[in-house]
């Protein structure tokens, strides 16, 4: 049993960003463990050739390429069949999986089948005294748990956006095509439709994010936030109450369950600061909080706090930004 194996998804036709982040993680483990990095590339269509080249560019030697028409967005059952097939054959010591929509289902299920150690939603990977050590957020980001891998193999899932996309480190690699039989009739779940929402939102990549919470009182408040975001060149998100209430789409949600953001500037408007939300924003470089309640927990993590009614503060901010841009 040897090697680090990255499950690299190209289920949308091109290599996902979180797959690249995993390779960065694999390279951090590679040196101290003295192990090779290989990847299982899963997807369908001509995009896989480019994806394999991307993997070599980032330092992956061997790419096991599975091209199958069922390896498409959200089709976890097919991904599990293909991933399990390659991992059983290559017997890696560590399997890295992105904790995205498919990976969240894949990692525990693969670990179960391989009788592997399992840690999910990791935000840091490392090696200490020859053992793999991972860290993960617990208790709504109030604490970090450190876990040591004691048995092999190990399946580790990594939270998207927790690791940086690595610098290129090209290797002359090989691609091995692996044919996997996936019996469509045997798959217990089938994706019937992919509904894309707000693809242009770009919450996770925006350098400035404005978040709205229950304190906005209704969907109308978000129009004001959108105006501020437009002036600042940022994106708008929300905490859980507005998405639960249906004021804004669910995929606007920032927090433990929603998106994790690490912008240069995060402005939290009418957000009390539930742990659920805080867990997704602590990586922001500067946090500004606007809230009527001076006791709101959001102020305990904010670098700058404004106690006031957002209906007064936000228009004033918009006016000021316009004035500065005009000057």
């Amino acid at each position, binding site marked *: 049993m040897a090697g680090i194996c990255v499950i690299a998804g190209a289920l949308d036709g091109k290599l996902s960003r979180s797959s690249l982040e995993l390779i960065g993680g694999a390279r951090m483990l590679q040196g101290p463990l003295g192990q090779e990095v290989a990847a299982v590339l899963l997807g369908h269509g001509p995009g896989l050739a480019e994806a394999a080249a991307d993997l070599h560019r980032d330092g992956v030697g061997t790419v096991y390429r599975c091209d199958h028409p069922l390896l498409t967005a959200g089709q976890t059952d097919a991904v599990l069949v293909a991933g399990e097939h390659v991992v059983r054959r290559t017997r890696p010591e560590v399997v890295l999986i992105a904790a995205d929509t498919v990976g969240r289902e894949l990692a525990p299920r693969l670990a179960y089948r391989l009788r592997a*150690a399992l840690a999910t939603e990791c935000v840091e990977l490392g090696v200490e005294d020859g053992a793999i050590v991972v860290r993960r957020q617990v208790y709504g980001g109030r604490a970090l748990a450190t876990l040591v891998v004691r048995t092999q193999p190990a399946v580790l899932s990594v939270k998207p956006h927790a690791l940086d996309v690595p610098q290129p480190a090209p290797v002359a690699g090989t691609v091995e095509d692996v044919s996997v039989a996936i019996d469509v009739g045997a798959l217990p779940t089938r994706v019937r439709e992919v509904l894309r929402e707000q693809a242009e939102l770009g919450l996770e990549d925006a350098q400035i994010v404005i978040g709205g919470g229950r304190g906005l009182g209704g969907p109308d408040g978000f129009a004001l936030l959108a105006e501020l975001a437009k002036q600042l060149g940022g994106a708008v998100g929300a905490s859980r109450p507005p998405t639960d209430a249906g004021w804004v789409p669910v995929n606007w949600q920032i927090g433990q369950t929603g998106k994790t953001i690490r912008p240069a500037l995060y402005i939290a408007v009418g957000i009390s600061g539930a742990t659920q939300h805080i867990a997704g924003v602590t990586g922001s470089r500067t946090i500004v909080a606007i809230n009527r309640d001076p006791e709101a927990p959001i102020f305990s993590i904010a670098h700058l706090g*404004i106690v006031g009614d957002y209906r007064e503060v936000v228009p004033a901010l918009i006016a000021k930004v316009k004035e500065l841009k005009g000057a």
Partner: protein
Amino acid sequence: MEIIVCLKQVVDPELPARDFAIDPATRRQVREGRPLVISTYDENALEVALQLKDRVGGKVTALTLGPQGVVGDAIRLALAMGADEAVAVDDDHGVGLLGVEKARVLAAAIRRIGRFDLVLCGCESADWVERVVGPLLAEALAAACVTFVSRIELRNGALLVRRMADEGFHQLEVRLPAVLSVTSDETNRPRLPKVKDIMTARRKPVQVWPMADLSGTSPTGMRRASRSATWRCLSGRRAASSSRVMPPYRSPR
């Protein structure tokens, strides 16, 4: 439709930061004297189950795992919301179990409950956020698996579910039996029980099973996946974020 909903009791995640502490011996959150609640998304899972039962009929069983002295509150709430019966696995030592270990016990309990079409649980627990219990249960019970489901409907005998995805939503067709983990949206906000429901709940059957019995009778399913010694939790330390506290100031008007 036979539905089993797994509920976890956790320390109220919205407890003020000053009441949050890690026990250095167990390396888990101190629970003594803290209010306990049903973990956020588990209530949504129960709501989804109850809505489905309202539409197609059947039975909803609430299943929880924890020290008997305290799980009563979770059970009573679940029964008052509309669950038909409840099973509590009594476990004095299980508070610190990781997801793989909890899933093993829950799988054994579900086998003992017997027949099921659907098992629902929250997409994540409010405390350890491992997001593994649903998928591990699916494997242990040889059932279909979908996580982060917000809506389900039964159409011509097929189960259609809506999964929250990175790019939006996926609509999936799912074969039964299935294990689904549930996330929240505007359609599954947990109902508030009425006084009458709370009274009725007192007459509903509750079974308490000692965990030792279960692990004794448990088939090997989950055990082979996870040895409890696989992981060693070294430290739970406060995140650095709490150190950069700045007092709020009043905005100049």
